């Protein structure tokens, strides 16, 4: 599915450019979600379904939630007002919507063409990833756990510092 690969690649590039050029943080995040989905499709067409799933679960799921929390906590959304309709005007969602629709067309093309949807090379199954990860790259896995430990402790401290100004 070379066509799907090029469509997803183009969507990823356009969406990422729009992330950088948006003035509103939330609008930039909308484009970022589209960009991450597009990269997931690119990974899938390159024969890495496991990495594609990771891209959706971790990046488009958890990391975006984290970004939204950051926007909310720092209150950089701005333009807070009672006029909710202003926020729902088409200009803010039509761009990401169109890009996501283009991506959907690419995905439907992949589904319609059958399961064998690779540009080139060999598909790497999650099973092979497991064998490689816990075989030659075992040290990397243990180092990743240490990195995650640092992230855990850091998250706990960041959460703690937010509460102190309230006197708790």
């Amino acid at each position, binding site marked *: 599915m070379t066509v799907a690969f090029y469509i997803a690649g183009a969507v990823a590039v356009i969406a990422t450019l729009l992330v950088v050029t948006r003035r509103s943080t939330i609008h930039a995040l909308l484009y970022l979600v589209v960009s991450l989905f597009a990269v997931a499709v690119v990974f899938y067409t390159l024969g890495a379904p*496991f990495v594609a799933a*990771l891209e959706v*679960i*971790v990046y488009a*799921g*958890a*990391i975006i*939630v*984290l970004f939204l*929390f950051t926007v*909310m*906590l720092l*209150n950089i959304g701005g333009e*807070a*007002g*009672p006029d*909710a309709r202003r926020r729902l005007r088409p200009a803010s969602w039509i761009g990401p919507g169109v890009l996501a629709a283009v991506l959907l067309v690419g995905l439907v093309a992949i*589904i*319609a063409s*059958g399961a064998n949807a690779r540009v080139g090379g060999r598909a790497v199954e*999650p*099973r092979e*990833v*497991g*064998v490689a*990860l*816990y*075989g030659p790259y*075992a040290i990397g*896995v*243990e180092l*990743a*756990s*240490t990195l*995650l*430990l640092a*992230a*855990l*402790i850091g*998250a*706990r401290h*960041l*959460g*703690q510092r*937010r*509460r102190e100004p309230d006197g*708790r």
Partner: protein
Amino acid sequence: MTTAFLTNWIYVAVFIVAGAAMVVGILLMSRLVYPIHPSPEKYSTYECGIEPVGDSWHPFAVRYHIFALLFLVFDVEAIFLFPWAITFRRLGTSGFVEVLVFIAVLAVGLAYAWLKGALEWV
């Protein structure tokens, strides 16, 4: 093969269209039947029968953001466990020990966060 596959997707499309038509139809029916007598009081926000004060667009504390941060760490941990789980038998004892060490390091972090009260609801 491919045509049978596409026929199955046509059923999905039919269900989507029928479902959407049902929603629109019910809303249209009630719109035709119910009486309309608008007044400013009817369009005001209902808040337990009391006059609403201020507007609803103000920042409030997201107390569970710390849980979102911690979840992210364990989300990535689950990602590492998944390839191990599907190759469990092939990896044998060495893979099992590697995973135990991996989980133990993170368990230390969880115990630390727990003891420091990061999991308390504030």
